[in-house]
């Protein structure tokens, strides 16, 4: 049913309005009222006679009823509690509805042409009895149709136009303006006044309301036009539905108007190009915190450390133990630890500054009720929190992937270093035997410039040189491997941070924009809905 669809649309509008920080209390009250009204039977509708004191509301009801149902008097104000004139056939089924309306004074009638309408004679809304106005204001949102009663004296009062017609009329489908007491005027004057009233209604923005003239004091004879309108074939169910739909539509419109999104679909708050530029700047700031250059140093050091373990021969036990002891392995060769400690390397404030500046520059362009929510989104603390989460995610993903590279070559180096060490031991034994056992003959090797040099000395020098060259080669290879790997990590982190920042950082802003678009769409939905129900 279309009424349900309209109310669902209102629900949705309320939800998205909350996202952009609008005050939705009125809309919720409207929805509750509408839902409550649906809960009561709609086989008859409730028509209220509303107007200032002395315009003849009670007299008019008496004329409609053809008997005295509501006391009319010259004393102002007369009616202080609403009186309901109800078809007796509907008395029982309307009891709950009337109770919800807060009406205790009932007059029953046999019905006839008006068998599906309950007429309420309301108190005035313009007298010194302020509680009358309060009662009217409490009742009007709950009635299904209204006849606005004016007279030649009061038809242009500020209160009825500014306080009631332009406020309530857009929310009501079945309504009419009655220029009562027109017997005070000549018929030419009466039609001039009616025309002037129509002009004013147009200025109020509710120009489509019909204006009829009545002379309630003359009884049934004086209210011909009004009776015609009252008896015109309308289905009560449709009156009730149309009223609810109109209320829902106005509630949605009001939300959209407060959010400044009536009319064309709203464009994103931040232009694409500006947004891209700011995101690049934010990513740069984030990378500066991660310190990619530092990370690369760590990666190289870690690779070298790994290479030493496998390719440094037996002596590496000694150096590794020393490094472990002084903690250098963790401090200088721990890319994972370095990554996860990114937040200790400074403040994110400079990183989010470009985005904050960009977002706050839009504040004057959104309507005042939205600014609180936008200011919250662009608050540096919340941007920083979001950016930190993004970096943490990147770092966690990256840390899982970190595998220090390795190479089979290192084992070859290691084996060679073992050979070198063995040779050194052999040479040491040789030297020892030279000193221990006298007159062992030693060969010499003639070297250029130096002449003949004893073989063990040459061998020792050559072995030491080989050991040194091997160590250097290992270091160079590990360095080359490490740098290549470090570059990969660096590029990966950079790419990942950029990608995640693009996707994540502005999610709340996108939600904000999406909600504005949804609110705008809800207006069109509400319009469609109310057109359908007509």
């Amino acid at each position, binding site marked *: 049913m279309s009424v349900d669809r309209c109310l669902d649309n209102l629900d949705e509008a309320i939800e998205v309005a909350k996202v952009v920080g609008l005050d939705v209390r009125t809309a919720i009250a409207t929805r509750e009222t509408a839902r409550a009204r649906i809960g009561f039977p709609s086989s008859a509708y409730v028509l209220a006679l509303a107007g200032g004191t002395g315009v003849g509301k009670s007299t008019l009801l008496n004329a409609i009823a053809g008997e005295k149902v509501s006391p009319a008097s010259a004393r*102002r104000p007369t009616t202080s509690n609403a009186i309901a004139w109800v078809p007796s056939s509907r008395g029982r089924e309307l009891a709950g509805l009337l109770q919800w309306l807060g009406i205790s004074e009932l007059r029953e009638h046999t019905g006839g042409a008006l068998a599906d309408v309950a007429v309420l004679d309301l108190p005035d809304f313009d007298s010194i009895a302020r509680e009358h106005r309060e009662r009217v204001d409490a009742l009007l949102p709950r009635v299904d149709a209204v006849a606005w009663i004016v007279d030649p*004296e009061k*038809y242009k*009062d500020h209160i009825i136009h*500014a306080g009631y017609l332009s406020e309530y009329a857009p929310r009501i489908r079945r309504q009419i303006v009655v220029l009562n007491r027109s017997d005070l005027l000549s018929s030419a004057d009466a039609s001039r006044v009616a025309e002037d009233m129509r002009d004013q209604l147009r200025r109020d923005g509710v120009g489509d309301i019909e204006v009829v003239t009545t002379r309630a004091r003359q009884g049934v004879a004086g209210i011909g036009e009004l009776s015609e309108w009252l008896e015109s074939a309308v289905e009560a169910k449709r009156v009730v539905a149309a009223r609810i739909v109109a209320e829902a539509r106005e509630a949605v419109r009001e939300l959209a108007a407060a959010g400044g999104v009536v009319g064309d679909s709203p464009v994103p708050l931040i232009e694409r190009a500006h947004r891209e530029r700011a995101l690049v700047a934010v990513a740069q700031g984030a990378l500066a915190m991660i310190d990619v250059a530092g990370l690369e140093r760590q990666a190289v050091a870690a690779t070298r450390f790994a290479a030493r373990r496998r390719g440094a021969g037996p002596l590496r036990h000694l150096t590794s133990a020393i490094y472990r002891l002084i903690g250098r392995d963790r401090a200088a060769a721990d890319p994972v630890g370095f990554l996860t400690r990114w937040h*200790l390397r400074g403040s994110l404030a*400079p990183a989010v500054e470009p985005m904050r500046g960009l977002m706050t520059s839009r504040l*004057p362009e959104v309507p005042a009720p939205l600014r609180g929510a936008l200011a919250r989104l662009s608050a540096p603390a919340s941007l*920083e929190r979001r950016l930190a989460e993004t970096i943490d995610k990147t770092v966690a993903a990256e840390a899982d992937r970190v595998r220090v590279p390795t190479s089979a070559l290192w084992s070859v180096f290691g084996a060679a270093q073992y050979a070198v060490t063995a040779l050194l031991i052999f040479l040491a034994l040789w030297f020892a035997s030279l000193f221990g056992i006298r007159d062992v003959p030693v060969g010499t090797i003639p070297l250029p410039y130096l002449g003949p040099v004893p073989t063990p000395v040459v061998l020792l020098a050559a072995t030491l040189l080989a050991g040194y060259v091997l160590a250097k080669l290992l270091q160079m290879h590990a360095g080359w491997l490490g740098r290549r790997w470090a570059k990969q990590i660096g590029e990966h982190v950079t790419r990942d941070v950029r990608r995640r920042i693009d996707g994540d950082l502005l999610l709340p802003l996108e939600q904000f924009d999406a909600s504005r678009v949804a609110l705008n769409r809800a207006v069109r939905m509400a319009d469609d809905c109310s057109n359908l129900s007509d």
Partner: protein
Amino acid sequence: MRAVDSAELIARCDRLAGVAERRLALASASPAAEGRARQLRDHLEGFVRPRVADIDAPLLVVLLGPTGAGKSSLLNTIARAEVSKAGVIRPTTKDVVLYASEGDAHRILSGGRLFAIAKDRLKLAGASPSTDGVAVVDAPDIDSVERDNRELADVLVEAGDLCVFVTTATRYADLVPWEVLKRVRERGLPLVVVLNRVPADEEDREAVVADTERLFRGTGAKNLEEPIALIVIAEGDVDPSVSGLAREKALPLLERIARLAAEADERRAVATLALAGALKGLVPLAHAIADDLEHEAIDADALQRIAASTYGEELAALTREVQGGLVLRAEVLRRWNDFVGADQVARFISSGIGRLRAILLTAFRGTPVAPVTAVEAEMTTTLEALALRHASEAARRTAVAWSDRSDAIALVARHPDLWTASDGFGPAVRGGLDVWMRAIVDDVRSHAGRKRAVAQVAALGVNAVAVAVMLGVFAYTAGLTGAEVGIAAGTALLNQKLLEAIFGERAMGELIANARERLAALLTSLFDQDRARFDALVAAPKDLREVAAELRAVVDGMAR
């Protein structure tokens, strides 16, 4: 009214009008309060002052009432001619019609009685010289869709000597006219009520008249016993020849006006009565305005306090962050560390062989160039961002808190820039830091008094030493909790050693303390400036209280 004190009274009126004017210049969140202040000013300038100055000036009779009650018709009856347009289309009168003889009109206008009414809304209807002494003003209605009519009527209520309040049997219990009438009674204006369009039916007629008398006597509680001069005109009692009311029904009023025109003593009596009532009415009005002011002062205090406390909290948080050492990014710090850790710089710190080695290295390679620009730029960017972060948050929190208050929500809505730090805040931070850095350079120069220090500062460059001092501000006593051990702590340590070697411990402490104090002062003044945007939106509580006190002082003197 004795003539002797009139000069003093005029002086008091002027003083009071001056205070009212001052009050109007102060921003007010309540239209009602502003209305009262305007009322006082209009009343003083439009009535009290001219009336005190000349008790024999023409009487101003003001016709007031709701739309369609027949004010214009009544004026036509008084004038015996159609001087004001009456008709069925509401509202009929949008202008103020002044019905007076040429001489009276001149006296009234030059006397300033109608000063608040725009020339183009004032229509003159010439009366014969025989009406000299009494002028009648037809005010526009007070309750129709034309809202500026109401403002004109309000001004006229303050300017008249005699009010003729025209209403009808339908209207007499309407709220809007009732409130205007209440003001008429409060300001002690002599009143005649014309009840128009009373039903012909005898019973209804009696009921309506009795009810009207009962109701009207209730307005302005003080005058309960005073009878209301009530003139009753029935529905259809009209004089179509002038589009006016029937003469014979309005006769009591017409006679009264005629008598006033004829007898100067009578006029003077009415004027004196109106003036006495007005002076009596000034006191409660002035006190009511003073009450408004005092309430506003309390509200303004509260609003300013909200701004002060949020800004204070955020400034404290910023100060903590700055002193926590978490200011500079490791990336930049490392470059500084490389500089102060270089052997060539270490020669100032180390001794023995290390020193010898450092001196030799310096001889070969020269002193390395300090990354002064990079560190300064980093410091500026970071401090600016941190300050902006906290100032924006302070502004946002203040705006949120203000938006929750009915007296400030409109202010926040009118100024979208309140939701974040002002546009000039970032540049102001940068400018301030620039000055701060230059001051540190000057400090370093003036502290390098000792011979050795002069040479060392010269060798490193005065700017580099200044940067070392700046870094000392952030990391000197910070304890460096949380900062990545290594770069930050290492840099701080080296920095400190370097400065100590150059200046000695005491001078170093002084340099850093000076720099820190100046930074704190800079940030405080920047935050104060940003907060001043909020403070400026509400009137200063001190001013409000001053004006209130003066108001009370002036009228207290008057009451005596």
